[in-house]
């Protein structure tokens, strides 16, 4: 330590030639949605759900063409066949190919689920959004109406409408969405009311933004997260309601089939030992609901910035 140090110029190096270097961002910037996707990818169960949803959708599209049978073609010489080389999932009590019918049913069940979710989404956003940005009296009145309608038991109302209306695909969707939009409207309204208090919205208002602008540029993008989760979880609810309706004989008219009608048709056959007829639609309903539920849960966790690490 006693040795004296000579400090020369060349021992030093200038750190930054200019100050912009210090401000340079070295790591790639991660947007909110990229971050959400990264967290979602780590959730194995949610990814399983996503892959299952994609696989089911693809099979619903191409499944009915994978063999030469149609969903309505009856062959009485081939009734109640167990799964075999010709009929991969066997045949039903009218000799129809279950493999083709199952994927045809997937189209109908998924279509009903997605359409119901889409309609709930649109009506819910419009109603909830308007209610949220309106003055207090309009808001109160709109919410009271929604609350009263929502107090009517969902499945009871759906059943009632199906009794009154003519059976068909769009009737089912109508019956399901008639009060199905209300939870979404409440969610959107709650989010909008919360956002209304935020400074940046007030700033935008002070700058003369119109109601339409506020809704488009501030309210909707910022409420998208919880809404997406709600949409994802509406799909299994609708598929479940459709299956229940079909099971009560109020579903899709024959010869078309959804998973619910197939399960209902197969109910008599389990007592004579043809359990496989029920097995395939039952597993597919459960798998679809499972996939949407775990994906929705995973999405909820991934969208929560508090869980960010």
């Amino acid at each position, binding site marked *: 330590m006693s040795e004296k140090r000579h400090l020369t110029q060349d021992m030093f190096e200038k750190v930054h030639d200019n100050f912009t270097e210090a401000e340079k961002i070295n790591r790639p910037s991660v947007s909110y949605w990229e971050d959400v996707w990264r967290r979602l990818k780590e959730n194995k169960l949610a990814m399983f759900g996503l892959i299952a949803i994609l696989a089911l959708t693809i099979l619903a599209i191409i499944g009915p063409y994978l063999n030469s049978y149609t969903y309505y073609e009856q062959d009485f010489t081939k009734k109640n066949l167990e799964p075999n080389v010709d009929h991969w999932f066997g045949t039903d009590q009218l000799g129809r190919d279950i493999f083709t019918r199952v994927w045809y049913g997937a189209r109908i069940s998924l279509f009903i689920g997605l359409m119901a979710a889409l309609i709930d989404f649109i009506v819910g956003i419009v109603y909830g959004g308007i209610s949220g940005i309106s003055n207090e009296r309009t808001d109160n009145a709109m919410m009271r109406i929604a609350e009263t309608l929502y107090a*009517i038991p969902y499945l009871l109302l759906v*059943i*009632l409408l199906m*009794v009154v209306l003519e059976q068909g695909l769009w009737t089912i969707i109508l019956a399901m969405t008639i009060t199905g939009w209300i939870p979404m409207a409440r969610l959107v309204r709650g989010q909008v009311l919360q956002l209304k208090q935020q400074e940046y919205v007030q700033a935008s208002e002070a700058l003369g933004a119109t109601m339409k602008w506020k809704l488009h540029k501030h309210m909707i993008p910022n409420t998208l997260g919880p809404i997406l989760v709600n949409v994802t979880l509406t799909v299994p609810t609708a598929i479940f309601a459709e299956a229940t309706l079909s099971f*009560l004989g109020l579903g899709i008219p024959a010869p078309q089939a959804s998973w619910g009608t197939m399960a209902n048709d197969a*109910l008599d056959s389990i007592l004579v030992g043809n359990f496989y007829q029920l097995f395939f639609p*039952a597993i597919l309903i459960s798998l679809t609901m499972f996939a949407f539920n775990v994906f929705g849960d995973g999405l909820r966790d991934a969208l929560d910035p508090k869980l960010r690490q």
Partner: protein
Amino acid sequence: MLNYIFKRLVWAVVTLWVVITITFLLMHSIPGNPFAKEGTMPEAVYNNLQQYYHLDEPLAVQYVIYLKQLAQFDFGPSLKSKTITVNDYIVNGFPVSLHLGIQALIIAVCFGLIFGVIASLNRNRWPDYLAMVLSIIGISVPSFILATFLINYVAVEWRLLPVATWESWSHTILPSISLAMMPMAYIARLMRSSMLEVLGQDYMYTAKAKGLSRHMVILQHAFRNALLPVVTVLGIITTNLVTGSFIIEKIFGIPGMGEMFVIGIFNRDYPVILGSTIFYAAILIFLVFLVDIAYTFIDPRIKITGEGE
């Protein structure tokens, strides 16, 4: 407080009135006449029947007559079986459905709470994963699928329990389990997240710091407070049990109100559908009212804000 109860009661009555009106109008919007089919009927008999059921009156008068009947708890006659009224159906069927519903509710609440608590105390360890995967499966598998699987394996293949009907206690086990599964899974998930939130509160540390035993802390402090959100969903749970029982009673051939409702739908027996819908709605609206009131008694924080209004 009394003011609050009164307000809720008024809303319950208004909701019930909306349900009655909607159901009445829907049922009367169906074209045709219940006696038109029986073509061999003499003119005089037909006119007498029309008069007896007030079908010759204008709709508004029929509506008032029906409301008066309802006020005296008279749900009118059944169209299909001439000697039985809708009241008879309710008196015979309701106790059976109530028995099934209460048994299922007990299973759902007890096991749901136990699974939820176990999962929360073992967060991110195998009991947690096990309980949560089981509960997602519980939510994803529709009750009619679970019921048919149980019938196929437990009753038909292994012959452990009777297949159907409603005679002894062993007949009630399978239907109760099938009905309880979905609400149980729902309660378990809710209880888990509620417990996790409470366990992170400061007063939990205080309780531990005071030297209370782990049992005392969990039971007295965590469990009691975590129970609150579960109480709020009891209304929804009961609705699920009631509407779920339509299907369970149909599958198991249980002579309850649900089966009667389903048969009424199948026969297009409009007074039965109308009467049972209103009866169900009245019960459910009343239960939701009770839960709301009970909640203000359980949670002191709500009581204060309720009085402040």
